[in-house]
């Protein structure tokens, strides 16, 4: 069977009807994962026992497949009376999955900040949360912009997993084209190219942001 470029192009608009879903899930999951990951890392540092607990939680999240987590949220939780709509379950699943990785990234970003920064904030009489949000967080973000961006791209590329819980994202739509027409090459190439363009776009955006952060305060 020859690859039919015209057919490939013709299915693009249909696949793109899932673009909005893919994008908002990516953005929501990235934000969710960042907030969760930062919270986990802050709790991990707060005291010894909570530290052990968070360490375990972060490792557990990173050591289980994202699909298992998604199935758990979408199929197991309802058994216990917690029913979450598919898209929300997807956002929650990806947020939790990537929070584990981002917590690690944040750990590195904070470890590389000089201990004197914490001490200076403390010595000035700042509350712990002011030290965290006004002193540590901005410096951490500068350190971790690049790896954080990588995980955002990774979250984008993980959205097709949500096809298994019937979220109408782009891979699911491409599969629909495939199973209706019995032609898989064209929709797969089309969806692959769309993801490629999106990923490159996010990477460029992050690079630009990183440059901006670095230029803002010459150290």
């Amino acid at each position, binding site marked *: 069977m020859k690859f039919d470029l015209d057919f490939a192009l013709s299915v693009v608009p249909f696949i793109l009807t899932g673009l909005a879903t893919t994008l908002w899930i990516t953005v929501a999951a990235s934000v969710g994962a960042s907030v969760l990951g930062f919270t986990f890392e802050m709790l991990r540092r707060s005291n010894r026992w909570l530290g052990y607990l968070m360490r375990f939680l972060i490792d557990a999240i990173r050591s289980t497949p994202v699909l298992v987590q998604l199935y758990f949220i979408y199929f197991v939780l309802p058994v216990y009376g917690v029913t979450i709509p598919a898209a929300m379950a997807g956002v929650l699943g990806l947020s939790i999955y990537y929070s584990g990785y981002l917590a690690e990234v944040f750990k590195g970003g904070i470890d590389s900040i000089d201990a004197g*920064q914490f001490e*200076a904030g403390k*010595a*000035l*009489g700042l*509350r712990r949360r002011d030290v965290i949000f006004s002193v540590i967080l901005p410096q951490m973000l500068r350190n971790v912009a690049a790896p954080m961006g990588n995980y955002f791209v990774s979250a984008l590329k993980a959205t097709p997993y949500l096809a298994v819980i019937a979220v109408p994202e782009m891979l699911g739509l491409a599969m629909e084209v495939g199973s209706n027409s019995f032609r898989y090459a064209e929709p797969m190439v089309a969806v692959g190219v769309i993801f490629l363009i999106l990923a490159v776009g996010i990477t460029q955006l992050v690079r630009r942001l990183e440059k901006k952060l670095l230029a803002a305060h010459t150290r």
Partner: protein
Amino acid sequence: MTKEIQAGAPAVRIAGLQKWYGSFQVLHDIDLTVQPNERIVICGPSGSGKSTLIRCVNQLEAHDQGTIEVNGQVLGKSTPRMHELRRDIGMVFQHFNLFPHLTVLENCTLALRKARRLPRAEADDIARHYLGRVRIPEQQDKYPGQLSGGQQQRVAIARALCMNPKVMLFDEPTSALDPEMIKEVLEVMTDLARDGMTMLCVTHEMNFARTVADRVVFMDAGRIVEQADPETFFSAPAHPRARQFLSQLL
């Protein structure tokens, strides 16, 4: 003499202070009382516990036994609202520890705005006043990385002064500076001392100690082995360890 009237408690009162790092005792039986407006220089060989001692005064390091009172309030691990008490204790670090992501002005206003909850304009005015006092008013919009070491340390002093502390702690403020920048920082510190600031300075600048200090505290191996006015200390140190220390300096 009869008991002093408690019009003002001592600025700092340390009694029977002990501190361990694991099994190693870094501070032994430290007793030190600093009156308001008094200027103390703490000196001694490296590893003698000077920095640890003044870091206990604002509880950047917790002590294990003994009491520390600052401005009449007892400080310790379980002291509630420790962060509020620290606002009255300024600290200047060896490596400045300015916030690199904030401008000079923002470095000075951060605590005013977050801790004292002052509006921006008011905080800016206070910061400009103190930047003027450390003779660096024209650099307010630069980032710390754009300043020399001496300028950075003067900003750090201004940042601490902005909180209007009752006591200032200096932890080797000139040790990380090139020789030509030491002078500008010492001048600012001397001004501060003349204005009556209560100061505890850990420093190796013996000329500063001689001219500014009311009292020199000499530490060795975690103990205060000698305390004297600078004249006595420099001309006739009593303790052999102090004599040895001074002979190596001069």
